[in-house]
């Protein structure tokens, strides 16, 4: 079966050609139709750049190489006209901060309806009627009222519902969600994730779900990709990754998730150090300076992403042992 989205050796670089600052350094990732893949990593690990590249939204300063195939068509270098036929229609994106992602001077109804007007050639009144129905579907209590509001009159959670609703109007095959819950209260976070899960069940769309929070991704994703310093360091089915991470970084991330059920530790486990700055990524494994399992060659030789025998892949010279007797 053909993948819906196939990212191949994607590289995104900024700055001069002599001293490029690479935000994404060779990412390969595929999504099947209807699949949800989570991407997890610290700030500046290249997650957002990956999302923007998938939508053809990178700024003029970005140099992109590699391929981003959507339903067989390469989005990298695609003419704007064709790109505009795809995005908003067959692939859509939800952004991190709903406070700023809506145009402040346009009513909610306009901002939702315009998607159908531009992609389906719908009339404004028909499009607004569809927007009204969608507001109900995404759990807005009074859709008629909401339709006439300006963004600043809504709460953060409502705005994110509106943004998700605007994305779903055109029934996309792929939803790119870049930290969709990060800017929201914890209770609202749960609601928005529940909404994404429900919409996925109802529409069968694929989701590329990006978060720095493993817990956010774990509930929704079929597979999880862990990113570090612009690379995928581990990619595995969600249950496998959670129960038996192979890459030391994945394991460290998992340890940092506090468990509210057990006794409260004196110190919350943290991962000491910080990722290398974007300009300082020399040879070797980028995680090596913080890694407890590093050996001499980790500092020299960059480990490639190698498939393991469980359908996942990891980029490590000394991976943690596979756990026996996993589900």
């Amino acid at each position, binding site marked *: 079966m053909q993948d819906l989205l196939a990212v191949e050796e994607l590289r995104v670089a900024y700055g001069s050609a002599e001293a490029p600052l690479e935000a994404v350094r060779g990412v390969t990732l595929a999504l099947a139709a209807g699949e949800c893949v989570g991407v997890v990593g610290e700030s500046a690990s290249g997650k957002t750049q990956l999302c923007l590249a998938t939508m053809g*939204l990178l700024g003029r300063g970005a140099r992109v190489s590699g391929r981003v195939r959507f339903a067989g068509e390469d989005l990298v270098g695609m003419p704007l006209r064709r790109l505009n036929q795809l995005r*908003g229609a067959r692939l859509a*994106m939800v952004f991190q901060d709903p406070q700023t*992602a809506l*145009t*402040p*001077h346009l009513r909610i109804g306009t901002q939702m309806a*315009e*998607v159908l007007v531009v992609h389906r050639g719908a009339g404004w009144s028909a499009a607004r009627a569809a927007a009204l129905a969608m507001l109900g579907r995404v759990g807005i209590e009074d859709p008629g009222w909401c339709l006439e509001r300006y963004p600043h009159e809504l709460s953060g959670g409502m705005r994110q519902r509106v943004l998700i609703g605007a994305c779903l109007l055109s029934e996309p095959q792929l939803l790119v969600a870049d930290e969709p819950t990060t800017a929201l209260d914890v209770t609202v976070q749960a609601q928005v994730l529940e909404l994404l899960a429900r919409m996925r069940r109802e529409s069968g769309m694929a989701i590329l779900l990006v978060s720095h929070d493993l817990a956010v991704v774990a509930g929704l994703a079929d597979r999880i990709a862990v990113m570090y310093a612009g690379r995928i360091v581990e990619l595995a089915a969600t249950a496998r990754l959670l129960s038996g991470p192979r890459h030391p970084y994945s394991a460290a991330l998992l340890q940092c998730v506090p468990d509210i059920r057990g006794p409260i530790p004196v110190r919350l486990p943290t991962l000491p150090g910080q990722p290398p700055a974007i300009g300082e990524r020399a040879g070797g494994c980028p995680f090596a300076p913080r890694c407890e399992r590093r050996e001499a060659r980790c500092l020299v030789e960059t480990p490639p992403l190698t498939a393991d025998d469980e359908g996942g892949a990891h980029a490590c010279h000394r991976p943690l042992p596979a756990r026996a007797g996993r589900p």
Partner: protein
Amino acid sequence: MSTLRFLIARLSSAVPTLLCIVTITFFLIRFAPGGPFDQEQALPADVAANLNAAYGLDRPIVDQYLRYLHGLLHGDFGPSFRYRDFTVTELIDQGLPVSFTLGGIALLIAVIAGVGVGTLAAVGRGGMADRTVLGLAVLGVAVPSFVLLPALGLLFGVELHWLPVAGWNPGRVDDMVLPVVTLALPPLAYIARLQRGSMSEALQSPYVRTAFAKGLPLRTVVLRHALRPALIPVVSYLAPAGAMVMTGSLVVETIAGLPGIGRYLVQGALNRDYTLVLGMVIVYSTLLIALGLVADLLIAALDPRVSLEA
């Protein structure tokens, strides 16, 4: 009716503002050495005394000030000291329509063309159009009107015979072209730069990225999502732009020989024509206050988050 209440509050706050301006101007011009009747040869003492008495200049200055205010309340700007047989009201009545037409058209052109050109530059940032606009904008701000107008007159009047170099015939459009262009260019250049900056910023904003993510064509993104926020700095600049046009009109009207009010401010001050200076200051301050008010109303109309508060 918050808009109405806002208008009433702002208009009533304009009265003390104007009063302050009138008061300061009244006493400042009186402190300037010399007087309206000074000439190269001193007037005979009895003539001077008669003139002073006729115009009330022999009264205590506070008394003169109160009498002037009293006249203002009745719409009387007083007699001109230098243009004998004319009251200041008559001079303004004759000149204001000319200046107002020129300045209004110039301001309108400056805003529309400046916004258009600035938007094009921002959309094609770094490209040919952008660099052309930036270059012309520097030129437009840097070249003074007393250079530009004669240069334009030389080209389009003397060489090409397309337009008159100077002069004014009521209702003739071609008389207005060169003065209007000269007046419009400096604020146009400034507005183009402002708009280029604010539009570039708007195009970087998260909501514009959302609009692009929706697959909207560039034109829709620019016009529907980016333009209104980008206009706010330009609108805020309306009153200073108005002042720029007014000061420009001092020079332009003199060079082109136009019967506007621009020349009265400078001439009135040089001649110590006290009432004329005051009248001009009142006209100009009123215009600037009105432009500021229009700007505030427009900003509230552009951004639903702004509520009108006086």
